[in-house]
């Protein structure tokens, strides 16, 4: 992974890195990715990719309203709480 790739990834992940960091991360990430190459040694044709054990099934919940008792409290957790809203710097269109 070179510096340009690190910058692209960092941008996708919204991480503003300093130049010195970019180089440092580039070499560390290259080493780690190199280690991941080991997985090529494992045969996986026809193996279904899975995140959960097969016996786990998605549940549903009944369509009954359960309003949160303190919505204003949730807004006020924000450093940018402004009245009823979350305020953020302008999105550049």
């Amino acid at each position, binding site marked *: 992974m070179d510096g340009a790739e690190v910058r*692209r990834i960092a*941008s*996708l992940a*919204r991480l503003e890195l300093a130049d010195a960091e970019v180089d440092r991360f580039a070499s560390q990430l290259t080493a780690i990715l190199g280690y991941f190459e080991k997985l090529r040694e494992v045969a996986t044709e026809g193996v279904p990719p899975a*995140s*959960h054990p097969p016996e*786990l*099934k*998605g*549940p*549903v*919940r*009944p*369509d*009954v*309203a*359960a*309003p*949160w008792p303190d*919505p*204003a409290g*949730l*807004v006020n*957790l924000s450093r940018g709480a*402004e009245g*009823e*809203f*979350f*305020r*953020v*710097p*302008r*999105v*550049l*269109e």
Partner: protein
Amino acid sequence: MAAETKTAFEPVIGLEVHCQLATKTKLFCGCEAGFGGQPNSRICPICTAQPGSLPVLDDEALNLAITVGLALSCTIRAKTKFDRKNYFYPDLPKGYQISQYDEPLCEHGFLEFEVEKGATKRARVLRVHMEEDAGKALHPEKTSSSLVDLNRAGVPLVEIVGMPDLASPAEASAYLQALRRLLRFAGVSECDMEKGSLRCDANVSIRPVGETKLGTKVEIKNINSFRNVERALVFEIARQTEAMQSGGKIVQETRSFRDTEGTTVSMRVKESADDYRYFPDPDLPVFEIDPARVERLRKALPESFLVKRARYRDAWGLTEYDARVLTEEPATARFFEAVVAAGLPPKAAANWVQGEVLGWLTESKRELETLQTTPADLVDLVKMAERGELSHLAAKKVLRQMLDTGAKAAAAAQSLDLLQIRDASSLGATVDEVLQQEAKIVGDYRGGKETALNALLGRVMRATKGKGDPNLIKELLLQKLGPAGPAK
């Protein structure tokens, strides 16, 4: 330079429609999913993405999504999963949207719709999938801030992706109207573009007439009304045609429709905008769709408006026009069918509902849903007229009163004092009075003038302020006077 003949191009259009499912709660949490409300009043730890919160799927959303698929003749998957679509935006609290990527709930369906009177077309539906809505970011003018309201964050949507089977802006508009009606009749959504429960993006490309390969596709967003669907498409097709005919190229991009100008403009391409890094949501295991659930929903699927229309026409003998009007909205059809169920023959029911009730609604700018008068009330009124308690004209007046005030038929008739008088003794008394007062006309009658009877009838009607039952009055007059000519 020789004049070149301009190539003729034809448009190819596919619509992507987002429709809010009419559930009580949001897709993955128990917050209310309705419209409006004070900003940030319908939020909870889950839809504000507090650390540690987790999603749990709403049962009714699953039912309604399957219903949409069934209504569009799609195949419903036996297993479905949710995927994360990752991007950053302030109206997207988790930094990802829970959606469905490569295994959508419903696939390979179609919508049959009318392109013009009598001619229908089938447009293919590629897929229908579930996803959660984002919140709203407001950008107040002259400030350097945006304000975020998360009331809508997490509201359940289905995305209905149509294949590029639509051949003109008019067809696209017809498709959307038909889709809206289908979804409303299926009871899955309000489909109100003003309230945001129906949204439409368009994919449009052009190609030389006769060519089968598709041209470069442009996506148009920000179409916020039915009228604007056609306006946006007309503009875009013209723009693309002009570009191609002057030797230019179409750039694959997303454009935004500008309402006031009626134009589309290129949206600024966000850096790395399209790498959403979809992957299966690890907080939601695979869902098994019980075939029994699908069967139950299939059986419960309300009749589509096309089927209703045909039934009204063919089985009930209504005119094409009446059948159309009565299947315009599900509430209208429901009301009409309830009137029939309550005892009126379909044609009579159609006349009263279509002719009187709908007319009154338009005049009073009211919605059928807000009407206090029930189908049973209407039938009561019509039966009163059939029994002769009201003249036909009086019945119309009484109906108006009922619609205006919510009164029942008998009460309204009373209050307007329009009940036909049918009591023989009281009418008889009035007849006697008139016979006494109108000696001259009686004399004419005795003189053999049969038409004098009508004049006497008229006098009695006047005396009863028009409420007398004319048949009974005539009967009583004949009883008392005998046939025209000298008294025996």
